[in-house]
């Protein structure tokens, strides 16, 4: 064995070691079966049409394999869908957010992982297909089948996950996941990283640092081009949503539309200036924070991680309270009182919309 071959072996051993180390970090579908059982049920019937409710949700029960598998669906009308997922029945107490697959779905294809092991094995095992999207939209299943989780399925799932479009989420500012679905247990960064290190060492032995740079650039481009593509798709989505709309009205087109609309109404009712004190009470960090933001430049008080409202002695007549649900603050309409913990305020409801109310302290 020549020196070059020995280096090659060493580099691959190192790469395998790194991959093994990192595999412990990667979540995986531990219960996944490598082969589809002979008694695996058929997928939902082709031609089945599901109508989303007024809240944009549809659910359909179906038999499912006892072990973890992938349900591959091809649907018509996928453009109306925002997310889809499978839940085992009876549903777990927690929400299976790992299993939730978000759209838009390219070519109408949806790959849905089914995690966990059924309580009742065999034909009795059932699950529920849940679709979420535009209210009252209709979606028709064209084809469906269960697929065993094999290394190839994982790779294809990673590719589908990696190259698919995902809109910005609040977590996007904290970390960027090239892939988000846990079931395939693969990361393009790890795969390409291990490949880069192993071939890089061998290449360095043969061609020195020049090779490293070009090899790195090749790997980098492999990761970056899908990212650029995703950014372009996102720009298109952002343009469709906001372009041409006056800047002041754009928050009304976001997921915060109800909070923003309420805050705008409050601001139109209350006198501007620092003298108007307004307390925002909510047990939802997000709801409270965003409402407070939209209420500025009024003199807003919102406390994160503390009691929703300060001691009753801190509030005075003429102050205003906005209660954003969910909240521990309760309103007793007959008594005209707001209650929080062991405190209460005599208040007048100025107006309420959806889950938000504006009160004036008397």
């Amino acid at each position: 064995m020549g020196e070059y071959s020995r280096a090659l072996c060493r580099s691959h051993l190192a790469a395998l070691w790194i991959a093994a180390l990192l595999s412990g970090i990667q979540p995986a579908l531990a219960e996944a079966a490598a082969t589809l059982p002979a008694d695996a049920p058929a997928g939902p019937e082709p031609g089945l049409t599901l109508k989303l409710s007024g809240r944009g949700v549809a659910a359909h029960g179906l038999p499912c394999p006892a072990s973890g598998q992938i349900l591959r669906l091809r649907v018509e009308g996928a453009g109306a869908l925002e997310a889809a997922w499978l839940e085992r029945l009876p549903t777990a107490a927690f929400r299976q957010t790992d299993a939730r697959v978000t759209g838009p779905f390219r070519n109408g294809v949806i790959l849905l992982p089914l995690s966990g092991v059924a309580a009742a094995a065999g034909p009795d095992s059932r699950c529920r297909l849940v679709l979420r999207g535009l209210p009252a939209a209709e979606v028709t299943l064209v084809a469906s089948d269960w697929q065993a989780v094999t290394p190839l399925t994982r790779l294809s799932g990673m590719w589908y996950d990696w190259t698919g479009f995902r809109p910005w989420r609040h977590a996007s500012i904290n970390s960027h996941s090239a892939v988000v679905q846990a079931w395939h247990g693969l990361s393009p960064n790890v795969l390409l990283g291990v490949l880069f290190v192993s071939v890089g060492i061998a290449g360095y032995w043969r061609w020195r640092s020049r090779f490293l740079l070009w090899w790195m650039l090749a790997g980098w481009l492999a990761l970056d081009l899908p990212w650029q593509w995703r950014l372009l798709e996102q720009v298109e989505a952002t343009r469709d949503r906001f372009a041409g709309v006056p800047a002041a009205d754009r928050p009304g087109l976001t997921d915060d539309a109800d909070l923003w609309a309420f805050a705008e109404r409050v601001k139109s009712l209350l006198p501007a200036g620092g003298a108007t004190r307004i307390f925002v009470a909510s047990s939802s960090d997000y709801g409270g924070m965003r409402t407070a933001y939209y209420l500025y430049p009024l003199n807003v008080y919102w406390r994160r991680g503390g009691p929703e409202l300060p001691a009753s002695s801190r509030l005075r007549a003429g102050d205003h309270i906005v209660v954003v649900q969910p909240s521990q603050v309760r309103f007793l309409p007959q008594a005209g009182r707001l209650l929080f913990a062991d405190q209460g305020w005599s208040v007048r409801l100025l107006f309420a919309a959806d889950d938000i109310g504006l009160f004036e302290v008397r």
Partner: protein
Amino acid sequence: MEWLRLTLALLVPLLLGLQLVARLVPATPARGWLVAGYGLLAGLLLWPLLLRLWAVCGLPPGFWPPLGFAVLLLVALRWWSFAQTTTVMPGAAAPTALPAGRVARLLCILLLALLSLRLLSLALELIWRPLFPWDATMHWATKARVWFEWQGFVPFVANDEWLSLVGEGVFTDHHPDYPVTVPVWQYWLATALGRWDPALINLPWLVCYCSLGMAFYGQARATGAPQVEVIVFLFFLLTLPLLNTHVALAGYADLFLATTFGLSLMALHNGSRGGQPWQWRLALFCALGCLLVKNEGFFWMLTILPGLWVARRRDARNVLLAIAGIAVAVALVLWLFPAEIAVAGHSLGSLDLGYRPGALSGILRSLLVLGNWHMALWYLLLLTALVIWRRPVVLPVAGPLIASLSAACILFLCLFTVTEYAVGAIRQTAVGRIGLHLMPGVVFLLFVLQSQLRQLESRSATSGLRG
């Protein structure tokens, strides 16, 4: 008219920064890029200070009065520059033409085209999308919104203080004690527009991104590296996904801090190599600038000190000594520093010290598994291993940079493994953003290591031929 005001609001303060830095940087390779990169950052950091000073002096607020003053300053600086032509020369700029080789030229064109596409994608996202990320609406833009309405820097205080003062003459938000560079810029652009625009107020993020790219290019070219190599690393830096996200979803101060700290490290490295006093000044200015952006900036500023120490005693042993010294110093501070004294907004008592299992895997996940940095950290692993194994002589060359970055990494590890902020690594809510502060420096280190390997190989080949 609105666009004209917006353009002026950006252009004049940035020209001030450019003018200041142009006075500082003499004739040197890639001077234009250095002036552009550091000048834009100087404009971004100094204009808010000037606006606050303007307000403290009780001068009239609004758009035209401060802008008029800025124009006067600009004219004065320009005149001063002409008067002292000996210090500011046109500059022996590095050749800007693309490399001679056909493949290299094509590659450079391809990468620059991809970078232009990236810039366009981020710019469009920024100008269409209203303020979106969490902290942006929790404690950054809140201040700008109030200041714009009041046309003055009314104070923000903590929740309890606001209650004690019955909210009279004061406002409150979740972090009233954060540095105000970012919200002052948002206030300024809203004032220029004459309305609150939750998208266009974020244009400084795009400027910051350009500043980072140009300064990196300038510093990398100043090392004498081939253009194609510099463009490849520039591409690496400007396509880091989390960095891109902080431009597209502008509103956090992390991009500003990453740029400021990164530019300080780059100047530190080149200053230590070439000994130019103006590089030291740039390094010092940027290190101090960290204080103006975020509270964490104080700690990043401190990490420049070991780099300075190593720069004066350049050998491998001193690099290792500096790193060991920092580790010991951090441990001693954690052990002995009074728990109740707050530094940069935090006291040891509030950090609930103790090792958090799970945090380390969260950090590794952020660095190597998630897509935050593409393959930058894999590259660092490989280059470090190769350098230690094959060419340890490379280490002292990058000694100051390595010492400073190691100090920053030690602080980074401490923050996410033994304090309550470990939850930010476990849940991936902060580790990526804080890691972003170090990434421009890390990519520059990658560039330096790669260049040094190449240079050593060329020297070995030449001496081999002679032999």
